[in-house]
């Protein structure tokens, strides 16, 4: 049994874990459920010795332990499978596992290690060929290698971070069968997840985290998805934004049966059909990684549609790239502002020019004019910076986002795509960005707001589309829906199904 008591971990400006307690019993599968940024990964990093807690205690089998490095945690039988596997691609399975064996002798017996691997894989149904090279394996098989590695290191307590995020449904099913076998044999397993249906089907108990605090631990048998959704996202809306709902019906942009591939070449956007109305704020809700980024890039013209048609202001623009979409009036505030939206090594006015440099006549840029325009922009949007000639990486996060928004709004767009525009900002900057986007929509500019924060989505938008697995689960109005309904759709329940039930 592992117990964490009142763990507190603070990062500059963020209280990532606030007196979180967690008890995981022997032989159970325990889920750690929560939104992004709820503190799940931090808590597990404390348990695996990666972070030292600022407060609180850890007990294993009733004895108090302190870890000064991940090595100590491994010695106590705690192991973690990270989302990004730590394997050497050109090496074989056995060689990779050999690498993590600490007291390996100078002369070792690879055959013996291979035999042990086969032994472990047969015991828990983790079929794997110890002689296979890692790059030849599927993602699911690589995950099995990580699990076998932990087992051979003697892990009694396994933590898996979003283990099914990269798996196909069939692989996920096989994984849980394995995990259940391990639990039966007396091992404890913690699954970090935000997929409710999966957690409901496969775990014994669930601890929900929200905003760095533990909301509570429940037995899976005695709870339901609605209750969990409420625990995960339920909080009072502070309706300070003063957004008035409006029903717009003039179509600005249409996506018809659009599909697109993700960076890994798999289908991430599946048959998306939607209209974006002029002057509305359309919210896209969903758990991170369910196609929102791909949707934003496809609308912005950075990702080509594999099939389907896109039209803007009544004209087809399926084939037009980013440059043409910029000229059509599509502004884009990307999720990744430091490497995509801005060039951090360039200074403030050089970054302002990123959008406008083409408008200067002739082959040259008049930097005096750019500087002058930038000064006005910086004053109008109240961007605080030491000097316009400093690289923007020296600015604070909030001001960087303001500069980016200022540039994208000032180019007189018809549509602004904003992806997680408030992420990582402090309360003041968050409020500013909210008001700014609402203000723009009141001026008749359309906003496509992609966010995982339901509070933002509910308080700012006119309509909400919920995505899951690259598909649209349903379209709702903020005044006619509930957090529970959206939460269930985010977890993969279609709106039509919900209302039949």
């Amino acid at each position: 049994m592992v117990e964490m008591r009142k763990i507190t971990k603070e990062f500059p400006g963020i209280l990532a874990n606030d007196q979180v307690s967690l008890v995981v019993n022997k032989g159970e599968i325990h889920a750690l459920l929560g939104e992004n940024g709820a503190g799940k990964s931090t808590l597990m990093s404390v348990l695996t010795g990666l972070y030292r807690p600022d407060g609180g205690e850890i007990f294993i089998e009733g004895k108090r332990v302190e870890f000064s490095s991940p090595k100590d945690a491994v010695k106590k039988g705690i192991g973690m499978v990270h989302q990004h596997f730590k394997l050497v691609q050109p090496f074989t399975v056995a060689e990779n596992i050999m690498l993590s064996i600490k007291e390996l002798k100078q002369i070792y017996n690879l055959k013996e290690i291979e035999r042990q691997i086969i032994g472990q894989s047969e015991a828990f149904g983790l079929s794997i060929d110890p002689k296979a090279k890692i790059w030849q394996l599927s993602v699911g098989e690589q995950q099995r290698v990580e699990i076998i590695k932990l087992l051979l290191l003697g892990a009694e307590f396994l933590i898996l971070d979003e283990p099914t995020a990269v798996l196909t449904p069939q692989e996920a099913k096989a994984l849980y069968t394995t995990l259940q076998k391990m639990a039966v044999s007396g091992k404890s397993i913690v699954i970090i997840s935000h997929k409710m249906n999966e957690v409901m089907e496969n775990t014994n108990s669930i601890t929900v985290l929200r905003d760095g605090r533990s909301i509570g631990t429940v037995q899976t048998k005695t709870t339901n998805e609605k209750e969990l959704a409420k625990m995960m996202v339920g909080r009072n809306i502070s309706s300070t934004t003063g957004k008035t709902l409006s029903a717009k019906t003039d179509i600005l942009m249409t996506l018809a049966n659009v599909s697109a591939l993700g960076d890994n070449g798999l289908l991430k956007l599946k048959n998306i059909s939607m209209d974006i109305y002029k002057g509305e704020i359309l919210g896209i809700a969903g758990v991170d990684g369910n196609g929102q980024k791909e949707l934003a890039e496809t609308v912005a013209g950075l990702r080509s549609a594999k099939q389907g048609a896109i039209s803007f202001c009544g004209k087809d623009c399926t084939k037009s790239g980013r440059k043409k979409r910029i000229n059509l009036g599509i502004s884009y505030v990307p999720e990744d502002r430091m490497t995509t939206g801005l060039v951090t090594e360039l200074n403030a006015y050089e970054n302002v020019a990123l959008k406008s440099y083409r408008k200067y006549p002739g082959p040259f840029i008049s930097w005096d004019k750019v500087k002058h325009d930038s000064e006005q922009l910086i004053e109008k949007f109240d961007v605080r910076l030491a000097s316009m000639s400093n690289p923007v990486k020296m600015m604070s996060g909030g001001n960087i986002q303001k500069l980016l928004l200022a540039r994208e709004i000032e180019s007189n767009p018809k549509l602004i795509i904003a992806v997680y525009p408030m992420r990582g900002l402090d309360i003041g900057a968050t409020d500013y960005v909210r008001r700014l986007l609402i203000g723009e929509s009141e001026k008749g500019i359309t906003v496509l707001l992609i966010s995982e924060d339901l509070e933002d989505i509910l308080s700012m938008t006119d309509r909400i589309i919920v995505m899951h697995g690259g598909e649209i689960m349903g379209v709702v109005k903020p005044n006619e829906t509930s957090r529970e309904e959206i939460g269930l759709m985010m977890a993969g329940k279609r709106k039509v199904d919900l209302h039949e039930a």
Partner: protein
Amino acid sequence: MKRKLLGSWEIKKTNTSSGLKKVVISVTSIILGLIFAGLFVLLTGKNPLELYTEIVQSSVGSIYGLSETIVEMIPLALCSLGVSLAFRMQLWNIGAEGQFYMGAFGATYFALFFSGLPKLVLLPLMLLAGLICGGLWALIPALPKAFWNVNETISSLLLNYVAYLWIAYLVYGPWKDPKGNNFPLTKPFSDNGTIPVFGNTRISYALFLMFIIAVILFFILKHSKWGYEIRVSGSSRKAADYAGMSYIKNVLLVMFLSGSISGIAGMAEVSGVLHRLQQTISPGYGYTAILIALLARLNPISILLVSFLMGGLLVGGYSLQTSGFPSSMVSMFQGSILFFVLAGEMFNNYRLVRKKA
């Protein structure tokens, strides 16, 4: 993580990096590099100070030495301007040497087979041929880079050997001078195919070309939209895509131009200095050019300055042979300097501070 090595000091990242600090760091690095190389000279029993004095005297101590330094400076600076353009976009064009040889090849073709044309027609034709051949040679690694992201460092480097052997084939085979006593040389260019020189020095009018190209590059990078696209693409490809800049188009254009400037250098060498094509036309200008571009932080004007220094080092190296040293000693000096300059780079972004107790 304890860094016992540093004792009570620790390395801190800094954001500020003033112009003066950069200059001080560069100069200090070069001096340390020379001291380090001097240790090896000491091992041979010679006084490194004498050796350095010798290098300085032979390269800039006389009008003749100075003029020879400028002769070496021209191909160095041109090749370096070429690679620096590609480096701006984080394209690691290591193929300036091959592009230089191919530029010489293109120019020689016209010099040999159109030798009867008037100077004012033939020279521009040779320049154009050198430019296009060098550019196309750089385009060979650029195409797979642009379309399939094939590493251009290796492909551009390997093409150097292809270019070198292609010239070898020509000067040993079809282009060999029948009256050349079987040496691997072409016949000398007609007067119409040679660039005039200043007075009785070996400095050709290609010097003007060097200055013009440096200034044009400076303005392109600083003030043009295209130069801005290159800088953005070099810093972050994602940001370039985001701003609607065509990465593929820019890779091809930048690599072509980069190669064509080295091609011009090759043309200037055969037409302005050697007046014929031969097996070896470069003591590694294309490689030294990379070092110069890095030392000059890709700034076209600094490149001229550093090229002059490196040209002097080359000329000094030739004179070392009379003191019993191989001229390749200079490569060791260059290597030592580069080592310290790259190590010194760290101090632009980091600084050593005393730990607080």
